[in-house]
């Protein structure tokens, strides 16, 4: 589904953040990328989504056999890539409902589909809001304006479920969540997951991976994946920290 090969990316001032990433994600898989602060985790998610603050200097990203790097961020979204933001932005005066309605219909338009009917939209909203314990008054609030950290993340996952992407990238979705909210969000992700889509979890801590169980865990350090393994790797990192992996890789 997603193939990243030898990806190098830098920021405006020329500092290289990603230094040769290789990653393959197949349908039905859950991957986790872990790593210390500043290792390039969030940069990787931004580059996949197409944020223009980063310049890709080398390498490729293919998504379902198409070159993602030639597409703008909106086109990537239309192809089925979703990013749950670490810091979702506020859009005053635009309600949660209006925003998701616009997102769905713009995506459908790009895919050559009719706009979604009001009754189907309503049914989907109701269904997904219920799964995430989102109350109706929440839906009429301005997007992310005055939301608590937990509400913002819950809203991100709500949008994910509404848009039903092929690949969902969760960037530090666990930060700012208390344990109950974490469980609700994880339940949402687990309900969304099936054999045709994939999830890429980016996290600093192992905590979230107790609830969203990965098939593969990758350690990112200084712009490179230095170790990959199964879900037990996450536990090892939790117990021993990152230093031993970094030292091991240096040998």
């Amino acid at each position: 589904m997603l193939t990243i090969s030898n990806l190098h990316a830098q920021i405006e001032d020329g500092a290289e953040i990603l230094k040769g990433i290789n990653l393959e994600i197949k349908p039905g898989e859950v991957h986790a990328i872990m790593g210390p602060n500043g290792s390039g985790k969030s940069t990787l998610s931004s580059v996949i989504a197409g944020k223009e603050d980063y310049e890709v200097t080398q390498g490729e990203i293919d998504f379902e056999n198409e070159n993602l790097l030639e597409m703008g961020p909106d086109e990537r979204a239309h192809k089925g890539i979703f990013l749950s933001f670490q810091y979702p932005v506020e859009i005053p005066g635009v309600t949660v409902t209006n925003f998701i309605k616009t997102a769905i219909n713009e995506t459908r338009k790009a895919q050559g589909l009719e706009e979604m009917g009001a009754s189907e939209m309503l049914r989907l909203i109701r269904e997904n809001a219920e799964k995430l314990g989102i109350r109706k008054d929440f839906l009429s609030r301005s997007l992310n304006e005055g939301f608590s950290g937990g509400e913002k993340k819950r809203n991100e996952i709500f949008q994910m479920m509404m848009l039903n992407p092929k690949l969902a990238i969760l960037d530090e979705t666990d930060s700012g969540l208390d344990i109950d909210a974490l469980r609700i969000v994880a339940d949402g992700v687990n309900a969304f997951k099936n054999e045709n889509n994939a999830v890429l979890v980016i996290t600093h801590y192992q905590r979230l991976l107790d609830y969203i169980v990965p098939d593969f865990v990758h350690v990112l350090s200084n712009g490179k994946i230095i170790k990959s393994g199964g879900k037990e790797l996450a536990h090892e990192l939790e117990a021993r920290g990152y230093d031993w992996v970094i030292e091991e890789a240096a040998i």
Partner: protein
Amino acid sequence: MSNTKYTEDDLRQDLSSRKEYEFGFTTDVEYEEFPVGLNEDIIREISKRKNEPEWMTEWRLEAFRHWEKMEEPDWANVHYEKPRFQEITYYAAPKKKPELTSLDEVDPELLKTFEKLGISMDEQKRLTGVAVDVVMDSVSVATTFKDTLSELGIIFCSISEAIKEHPELVKKHIGKVVPRTDNFYAALNSAVFSDGSFCYIPKGVRCPMELSTYFRINQAGTGQFERTLLIADEGAYVSYLEGCTAPTRDENQLHAAVVELIALDNAEIKYSTVQNWYPGNEEGKGGVFNFVTKRGLAEKNAKISWTQVETGSAVTWKYPSCILKGDNSVGEFYSIAVTNNYQQADTGTKMIHIGKNTKSTIISKGISAGKSQNSYRGLVKVMPNAEGARNFSQCDSLLMGNECGAHTFPYIEIKNKTAQLEHEATTSKIGEDQLFYCNQRGIDTEKAIALIVNGFSREVLDKLPMEFAVEAKKLLEISLEGSVG
């Protein structure tokens, strides 16, 4: 196809080349000849062509004599070459007009114009329940629904007609809220106004439909000076809509209107404007000078509500105001002003609290893009007897790019210490982060800007009557539309 960064510069670029002004066509109808320039003879001639009574001619002449002694104001935050008042034609009437009793008699060219403007004067409009008066250049050319309204005792006609048919009402109220000496443009308007709308809602009547006037400047080298007078008698209610467009022309066209509202005891008037005069081209050439005086007088327990969506005009100078004379009267001002390219807007309101327990609300949303300048100017004045007066003001500005300006000039004069005032102001910018967030959800940049702007303007858009809100949203999008996509 963007793997390159979308910078502020790109954003500005995208915003700077707007879609062409949609209403820039001209209508080919014959006009009555009229000399250029302004003097007492010209004013007598205007009055004569309109078959006005003597008192009206005199009223105009007095206004003209005041005007001659006045100076064009220059305190507003706008810069433009002053119009040469002797080079303007002050009267332009489509020739075939004379006395229209039904739409069938309207010049087919005019009907086509209305169609292009999206005004259908037939059943369609009947279904939406909007009565329309159309003022082309200076003359009212068609008023719909007169009969339906007259059954309720509502008078809705051109002001010329009102001067002839209802002189007692006009004589009593004209110039009462906006005196002829009020300001330079109001004096000019009083001297030369050629037409406009008149409306009277009798005691206790709720006007069952939206009343609407559609203004259009067609003829080159003419000014438009329409005059609107709206009276809601005790306990009456009316919602009134006003729309404006003009053809694309290289020279600046002058529009100096006066609107007077009178809400007697317990009456309510809602006055909504969507102003889309030609704004000039991308280099700031041409466009309408919109110098307008709008004011309402609210008696006891009366309420006057101004809502405006200002997207057009090269220069706007406009302060729809409320004189809250009666106890417990309420004044509201909801405004969205959009400026792009080289447009300049200096707009706001005056709330004059005279009666006890009077209340006013001001919500102003300014959106600036391109190299435009957008100013809010407002006065809240509480007079000595206005015990318990209250005001809430909120002025928000949204900036796009680095070359435009947003300014706020709130003035406050309080002469009664029981007054309570609140003022809030914010300035924000459409951020790249907001655009990327929308993009990531599949919303392209152009649509994202429209969404953000609509969200920013929501509190005001919500105040518009429904059919108008849809039009206004579309207009906001067009005004800020870029070349993206």
